[in-house]
């Protein structure tokens, strides 16, 4: 009376579903356990992917080469006098200087960015207000503007140099994590604020991908001439930065270490439940199934399908819960564990990005937890005779 194989597997799938519904309490407990295990990981990966997406744009739209000096082993300011020499190098299509520093805006650390006028014009679509034109005019990041009610036209000074009077020209929208707590101003204003004359944090060189080796070669030639002003420069190129980006957003460091440890601890409880810890009833049912003609592998297949259904449910729940929490509630209470300096109620939009490949990973992880518990114990028990199982 054996019918098609496809129908057989379909029957087993429906039998698995029926069994889950029959043992509702156990199914709910295991699903919730799995969801608790998965949710922190889902949130971490989603935020990581969102930030990585933003960071990749930051690297891609940035310069090809960043030039600074070497000062006591770290980056040091570089004279803007070199700008002209570098801009005329073979392969360089554009060169500009920028100041990047940090200061306190009231009690909040903010990045200070000073760029040339031409670069400021690019920001127009993102600005509510006007672009900085007169000396001292500054664009305030949305996070700072909202927190401290900084409106266009408002003058202010900052503690680290209260002689420099700024005036808010407008607010720049927070398009990314780093665009919230930032002050963007003209290059000269930044230097004046930091009391630096004639230097920049970095000189930015733009070239084409094919010409980067040529430009680097020319730069190295300059640096090899010891004793010249350019002999102690540091060069960072886009390729190296991109490599660091890839490594920096790996899943083996930082918060992921803690997450995997916690998940492993929680997985133990899920393991115990799915392995039928203390549930003699399941052993007896298995004995009855074997006694009425079910084969061992058919029982195992049903167990696998039960766990697959539970895992699918838990993964879906985790993803939806994560979306509601991070996108809907902007990661309130939880984002601070994944992104530094955002506080209990983040003042900046927490980016999160969900990928199908991650969903597949969550499914594999969930299956790993449930199957480790149930499949092995079921396989062990299924080797007993039906009579032994029913006793």
């Amino acid at each position: 009376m054996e019918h098609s194989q496809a129908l057989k597997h379909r029957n087993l799938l429906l039998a698995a579903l029926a069994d889950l519904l029959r043992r509702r309490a156990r199914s709910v407990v295991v699903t919730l356990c799995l969801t608790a295990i998965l949710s922190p990981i889902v949130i971490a990966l989603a935020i990581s992917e969102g930030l990585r997406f933003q960071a990749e744009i930051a690297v891609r739209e940035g310069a090809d080469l960043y030039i600074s000096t070497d000062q006591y082993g770290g980056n040091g300011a570089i004279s803007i006098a070199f700008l002209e020499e570098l801009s005329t190098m073979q392969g360089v299509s554009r060169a500009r200087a920028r100041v990047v520093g940090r200061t306190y805006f009231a009690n909040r650390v903010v990045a200070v960015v000073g760029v040339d006028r031409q670069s400021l014009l690019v920001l127009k679509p993102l600005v509510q207000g006007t672009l900085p034109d007169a000396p001292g005019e500054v664009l305030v990041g949305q996070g700072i503007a909202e927190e401290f009610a900084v409106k266009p036209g408002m003058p202010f000074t900052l503690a680290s140099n209260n002689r420099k009077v700024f005036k808010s020209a407008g607010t720049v929208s927070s398009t990314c994590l780093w665009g919230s707590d930032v002050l963007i101003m003209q290059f000269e204003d930044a230097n004046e604020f930091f009391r630096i004359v004639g230097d920049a944090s970095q000189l930015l060189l733009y070239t084409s991908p094919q010409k980067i080796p040529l430009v680097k070669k020319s730069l190295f030639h300059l640096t090899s001439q010891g004793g010249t002003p350019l002999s102690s420069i540091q060069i960072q190129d886009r390729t190296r930065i991109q490599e660091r980006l890839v490594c920096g957003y790996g899943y083996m460091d930082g918060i992921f270490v803690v997450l995997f440890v916690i998940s492993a601890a929680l997985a133990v409880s899920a393991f115990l439940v799915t392995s039928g810890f203390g549930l003699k009833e399941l052993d007896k049912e298995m004995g009855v199934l074997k006694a009425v003609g079910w084969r061992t592998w058919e029982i195992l297949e049903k167990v696998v399908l039960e766990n697959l259904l539970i895992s699918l449910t838990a993964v879906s729940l985790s993803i939806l819960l994560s979306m509601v929490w991070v996108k809907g509630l902007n990661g309130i209470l939880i984002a601070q564990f994944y992104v530094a300096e955002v506080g209990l109620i983040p003042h900046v939009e927490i980016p999160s990005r969900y990928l199908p490949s991650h969903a597949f990973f969550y499914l594999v992880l969930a299956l790993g937890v449930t199957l480790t518990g149930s499949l092995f114990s079921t396989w062990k028990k299924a080797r007993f005779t039906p009579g032994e199982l029913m006793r």
Partner: protein
Amino acid sequence: MEPIIKTENLSKWYNVGRSNEVRAVDDISLEILENQSIILYGPSGSGKTTMLSLMGTIDRPTAGKIFLRGRDVTQFSDLELSRIRREMIGFVFQSFNLFSGFSAWENVSYPLVPMGVNARDRFERAKTLLERLGLGDRLHHSPEELSGGEQQRVAIARALVNNPQILIADEPTSNIDADSIERLLGILDELKNEGKTIIISSHDPIFKEHGDVLYRLDRGRLEGISYPRNEGKKNR
């Protein structure tokens, strides 16, 4: 005629070699012909259930052999035994062992699930059997909603769903009322008339006068054989 079931020096011992060793079945040899109605009779602890489990391939013996249609199944693999249980044997357990949460028809048709039978066919097959056993109006009731006699009939229907040649019932009268017992005896007679081989274990005296062969067991050993049906004919 080749027996459908034959045992040779069959034994099942528990805790072998220990102080609490139990010889549930000890060196029993018997033969069961096709279409016979066999009673394993004896008090509690005599080894009846163990003997049924061994003949039904639900347990493995400690010693001895079991032959089903001439094949020694003692050394069969788990897969081969599953096939025998699926195709040849229907087992009715003493405590029925129905799945709570499933309806009567779902319990009956559960053995058909891994055989790739579609839901409609499974329902029809279960419905036919349950109607035959007088449970046509109980198809969708779960075991908790059925009486002891009704649960037993569901268990019998489940045992019959694969149309086995051998029906084994362990203490079928122990959990049911008198009316149900009468009904049960009628069902068993019907099944025998259809050509099935019926093997029953019981300590109920009512079976002393039923069956083709009655094997009397005591403390795991075969103590006697009688032929109730023949004796009944002789006495008339």
